[in-house]
């Protein structure tokens, strides 16, 4: 092992890369727990990050949570964990409890938001957050601040008009924004070749005058490398980048979906072999960053954290019906 391990040559310390892995495992475990809770009738809905943790972790580590806003989409569990959310916050959301910092239990799970952590509030209609991120980037530029805005979305969602209009706006004004497409090959049941006229979503960037990059989204370190470049460029005034991370959704679209209707079990099994958690663990072991025992401890600690969070969230107070009318408008005007 004379070569520098990849993460170091990309500028990540051993601690950082373990941390990255920890977020991936945490996201997976929280996600799995939600499915269990759903299947046992305790929560009505789950929408999953499984298969996309690596892309999100790689992207998150290229950002600076102290100045960069993110406008995530509903699969970005790992991203928001890296941005300061916890098993507890997300399980509170899953149970629809008022303590949930995302929406106080008002939105479905997976609808992130937290002003104190620079996580923009998101909605369900896809792609609406893309112009918002451009607006944040515009504000940054107007105020002479060097924050970057990050926005993610699926490949199906890149077909919405809002993607196009926002990307072009950012291209014209050379704004510090990263468009991060998590291409997981399906939009619910519709495969990418029925969604996209083009081969790669990244091919669209030239239509807005900036760079589009394809990266293997199952390789967190590669995503980190590409994202780091894009973020540095944006921060330096070089304008937007469209990053397309090729991933795979390992589970059904949501707890309401049955993916056997539209894809074979073989395809899913095949994809599991590229799972970023598996690959990342192997990488850490191979490069001596983590031992098997340490890894087991890490997983056990997370399991503990998820258990504690589940219990906490389940027992947390429910919403008071009297709060239904709160926050339609600001309390005081002028």
């Amino acid at each position, binding site marked *: 092992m004379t070569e520098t391990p990849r993460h170091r040559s990309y500028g990540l310390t051993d601690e950082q890369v373990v941390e990255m892995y920890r977020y991936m495992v945490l996201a997976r475990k929280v996600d799995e727990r939600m499915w269990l809770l759903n299947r046992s009738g305790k929560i009505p*809905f789950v929408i999953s990050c499984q298969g996309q943790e690596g892309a999100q972790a790689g992207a998150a580590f290229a950002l600076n949570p102290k100045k960069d806003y993110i406008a995530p989409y509903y699969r970005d569990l790992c991203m928001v964990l890296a941005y300061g959310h916890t098993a507890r916050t997300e399980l509170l959301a899953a149970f629809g409890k008022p303590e949930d910092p995302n929406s106080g*239990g*008002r939105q479905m799970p997976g*609808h992130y938001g937290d002003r104190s952590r620079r996580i923009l509030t998101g909605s369900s*209609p896809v792609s609406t957050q893309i112009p918002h991120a451009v607006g944040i980037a515009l504000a940054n530029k107007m105020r002479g601040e060097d924050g970057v805005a990050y926005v993610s979305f699926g490949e199906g969602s890149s*077909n919405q008009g809002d993607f196009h209009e926002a990307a072009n706006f950012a291209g014209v004004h050379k704004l510090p924004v990263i468009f991060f497409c998590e291409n997981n090959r399906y*939009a619910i*049941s519709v495969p990418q070749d029925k969604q*996209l006229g083009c081969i790669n979503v990244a091919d669209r960037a030239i239509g807005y005058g900036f760079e589009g990059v394809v990266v293997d989204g199952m390789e967190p370190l590669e995503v980190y490398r590409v994202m780091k470049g894009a973020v540095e460029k944006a921060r330096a005034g070089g304008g937007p980048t469209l990053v397309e991370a090729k991933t795979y959704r390992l589970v059904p679209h949501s707890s309401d979906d049955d993916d056997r209707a539209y894809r074979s079990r073989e395809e899913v099994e095949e994809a599991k072999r590229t799972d970023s958690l598996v690959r990342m663990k192997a990488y850490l072991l191979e490069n001596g960053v983590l031992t098997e025992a340490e890894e087991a401890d890490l997983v056990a600690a997370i399991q503990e954290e998820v258990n504690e969070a589940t219990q906490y969230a389940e027992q947390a107070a429910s919403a008071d019906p009297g709060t239904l009318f709160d926050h*339609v408008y600001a309390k005081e005007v002028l």
Partner: protein
Amino acid sequence: MPVRQYIEAIHDGLSAEMAADDRVFVLGEDVGVRGGVFRVTSGLFEQFGEARVVDTPLAESAIVGVAIGAAAVGMRPVAEIQFADFILPAMNQIVSEAAKMRYRSNGDWSCPLVVRAPYGGGIHGALYHSQSVEALFAHVPGLKIATPATPADAKGMLRAAIRDPDPVLFFEHKKLYRLLKEDVPDEDYIVPLGKAAVRRQGDDITVISYGYVLHLVLEAADRLASEGITTEVLDLRTLRPLDEEAILSAARKTGKVLIVHEDNKVAGVGAEVSAMIAEKALFDLDAPIARLAGPEVPAMPFAPPLERAYLLDVEKVTNAMRELARF
């Protein structure tokens, strides 16, 4: 007559029209291989093939806009919007284009288009999978709006909508999909658009409603009957055009009117119904025209206590009806 659920009746109506007229086709997100996320189009892909059951890219303005173009040249598209909440990106195509094509071309062009969308709450869908959007379109001349409340109406009105020479928005309440079953004719029939239906006869109060909450009204009317209060219940069925004759005569019959809808109250469909009565039947009234509707908050939250607080239920409806009867 076969007994069918609301969702089956819609499926059957669609399938029958497709079989009868090869200009009819279906397009939308996940309507093909998956048969729709609610399974309304289940089996149509196998039955009619991918050319007539089109899985579209995720882009509502294109779904409606492409359908408009096809309708203009003689096809009969039935576009599905996955949830009514997601119809808003297509607002411009619906209001600026579909609704105005006949008028702006002086009758030269037309747009025989149906846009189907599941709406309404009570399924833990939170803010964006629960909304009622009918009031956003009820103001627009050139459109028709159907909101059937029973399986037989759903099938008959869908067939009428597909055969209609003008654009029809067809809103299906999700809570109704599998709520009840009834006899639904197998033969070719339609339920004409623009006609309300008296669902129950009564002399003390008149309740005007539509969609899922109509069933709450009927249940409440049952309860009140045991208290000696009889209720005239009118199901609007079509929200544009409103059936003025039916509304005025139902209002006149008892002189006490309550309008009930799940959608929020201010500038909702109930406002027009009330204004119509206040304009044309004021002196037949014995009580203020009451409205019972959703609260003035942006949409219903996910947390079950908040969702319940938002939604109407038999209790709330019964109370409002009793109060009116006692007026």
